[in-house]
């Protein structure tokens, strides 16, 4: 549901990160997706397609890598892999955890390609 908003935030961040590479365009963006953000990967892909249009990241490929949820039990401090629908500690059976990983979307890398002179002119003509 909030994919469009996230795609926009992501694009802002990508453009900011590459602002010191004026002669390059973005051809790929890699993100790590925590399951707790409840992103629908297909919807995120569509949202990305629509927000990048006309920007330096137009035509860029979005690589989404899902990571598991890592939780730490507040009761017995055990760290374990939780599931989206279960945060029960395998040690003490409590479900009182601190989420260590899996509740974030992290921008990992941006792949840039130099804009060739001809391409830039072409781009400027329309």
């Amino acid at each position: 549901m909030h994919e469009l908003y996230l795609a926009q935030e992501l694009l802002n961040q990508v453009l900011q990160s590459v602002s010191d590479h004026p002669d390059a365009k973005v051809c790929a963006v890699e993100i790590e997706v925590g399951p707790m953000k409840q992103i629908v990967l297909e919807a995120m892909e569509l949202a990305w397609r629509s927000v990048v249009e006309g920007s330096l990241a137009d035509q860029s490929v979005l690589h989404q890598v899902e990571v598991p949820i890592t939780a730490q039990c507040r009761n017995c401090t055990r760290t374990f892999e939780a599931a989206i629908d279960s945060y029960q500690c395998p040690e003490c059976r409590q479900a009182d955890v601190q989420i260590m990983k899996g509740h974030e979307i992290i921008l990992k890398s941006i792949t840039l390609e130099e804009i060739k002179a001809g391409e830039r002119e072409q781009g400027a003509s329309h």
Partner: protein
Amino acid sequence: MNKVQVIESVLKANDAVARANRHRLHQQGILSLNIMSAPGSGKTSLLEQTISHLPHDCRSAVLVGDLQTSRDAERLSRLISQVTQINTGSGCHLSAAMVADGLDSLDLTQVDILFIENVGNMVCPAAHDLGEDARVVLLSLPEGDDKVAKYPTLFQPADVILLNKMDLLEILGFDCGSVRADLSKINTRAPLIPISCRSGVGLDEWLRWLTNRINTSSVE
């Protein structure tokens, strides 16, 4: 080809504003609660009941988020003066920046407790930190006893869970045991308090939780 390594949270902008909100509220000694649920679970009703039962020396303010209308703010401003409606337009949740703007509209020197009523939605609000101290999640009986399992990301970070509209228990045949069973896997930390904003049942226990929270935060 040139690969730039970044490693930054995509909600960095929101998180930074949320941290600033939290800091600003703490500086003023204000406890803040983010109230979340599906549309119509009774968030505004809960605030109406809570505000009228709080001790007089506990001054409250409300920021209330809705896609459209200022109806909730109108309801609440019958009880207190510091109420601001935030219209999110097409946005399905409040963001930290909207809350920051909302805070500008309030006189924070006259507030002890801030209630933030989020947009009615069980998915998106849970993903956005606003800078609150605690998360209050409501589930009302007409929504069905399977909702904890269906929306785990809303219930997992909750600090207290209110089961509202208990006056309808018999008509609906709602199974509280099934909610407890689901919570045993998702959140055993938050107390589950059955309430009814209509009959008033359970509100004393909720107010005890709240007063306790106010007292512990002022000690910190």
